């Protein structure tokens, strides 16, 4: 999604009203319930969220100049910087060591990389198709990418072929290097 993303893709920047900010926070906690305890730490009440509208109807939300989450359609997707600060709150899958290289260059994740011994998928019932997952790697603590499941985790286990996760955001992509100003 952020394969090509530069300053020219920004259409407008605006400050978010505090009422909208409240609903945003509520939405974020309803999507990721575990965030509730720390949401006030992430987005303090006094802080000002800024909304950056970009090409392709991508909307970025920044707090104090740092992009914390973004939105393509309805769903709010956290950025890796947010994930790193509170990794427990999101559905997570793990890839094996061999896959890291490809993930970091922005490839979609193939099923075998998710099912091999070094990888980890949640036990049944797992996650639905189209849900947003955080991707970590074997022997690593921090997440390295965020993607969207192209099939449910159970399907990945049984079919074990083809694309399993669509890449949305990974370490080193333009969004990762993005700074406001």
């Amino acid at each position, binding site marked *: 999604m952020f394969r090509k993303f530069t300053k020219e893709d920004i259409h407008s920047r605006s400050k978010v009203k505090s009422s909208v900010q409240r609903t945003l926070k509520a939405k974020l906690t309803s999507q990721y319930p*575990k965030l509730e*305890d*720390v949401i006030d*730490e*992430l987005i303090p009440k006094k802080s000002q969220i800024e909304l950056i509208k970009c090409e392709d109807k991508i909307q970025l939300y920044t707090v104090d100049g740092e992009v914390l989450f973004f939105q393509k359609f309805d769903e709010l997707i956290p950025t890796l*910087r947010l994930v*790193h*600060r*509170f*990794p*427990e709150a999101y559905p997570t899958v793990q890839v*094996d*060591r*061999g896959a*890291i*290289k490809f993930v*970091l260059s922005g490839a979609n994740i193939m099923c075998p990389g998710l099912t*091999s*011994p*070094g990888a980890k998928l949640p036990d049944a019932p797992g996650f639905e198709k189209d849900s947003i997952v955080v991707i970590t790697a*074997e*022997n*690593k*603590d*921090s997440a*390295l990418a965020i993607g969207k499941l192209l099939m449910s985790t159970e399907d990945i286990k049984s079919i074990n072929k083809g694309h399993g996760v669509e890449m949305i955001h990974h*370490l*080193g992509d333009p969004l*990762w*290097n993005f700074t406001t100003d």
Partner: protein
Amino acid sequence: MSLREVVYCGVCSYPPEYCEFTGKLKRCKVWLKENHPDLYTKLYGESDAADVDIVAGKLAESSIGEAREEKLEKDLLKLQTKEENREQRELAKKLASKVIIKREARTKRKYIIAISGLEVFEIDMKKLAKTFASKFATGCSVSKNAEKKEEVIVQGDVLEEVEAYIHSLLKEKGLKDVKVETIDSAKRKKKPTEGAANTAGK
């Protein structure tokens, strides 16, 4: 439950665990050793001499099989050398190129300063123009010159000040040896009336 403080590598901006995949591992290691020695020992072991053991340990604990692991290591090494070569090339290019500051006459006693050759040094021209504009209280903009290259145009006779500022800017970036050339195409203290009289006499 509370937020984690995350350390990001100062060289490649990734979390330190992923430094090995960027091809800048050597510099990352140096940075980490200086800034977060505890993390360094955790990730890379006590001393450099133990490197072989670490590799062996990695092979043992990795699940993707020795053959694949070896291939991965090889690929990473290749990436690293590639990256290093690229960096060297870039540095050489930077050292070879120079900044040109030009002073041009406009009408009568008015001058502009044109600064070109900045794009190699990753200096944001627009930002620079803005700082010049407020620093010297003049108009300053980025425009394309005759060779279709971007240059910063400062209105006003501020050659020395600009030169000093560019020098300090380059120093900050650690590029002290870069040449900064100043061209004064309009001679100072040249009396315009004299020239006018000469042409009139002919």
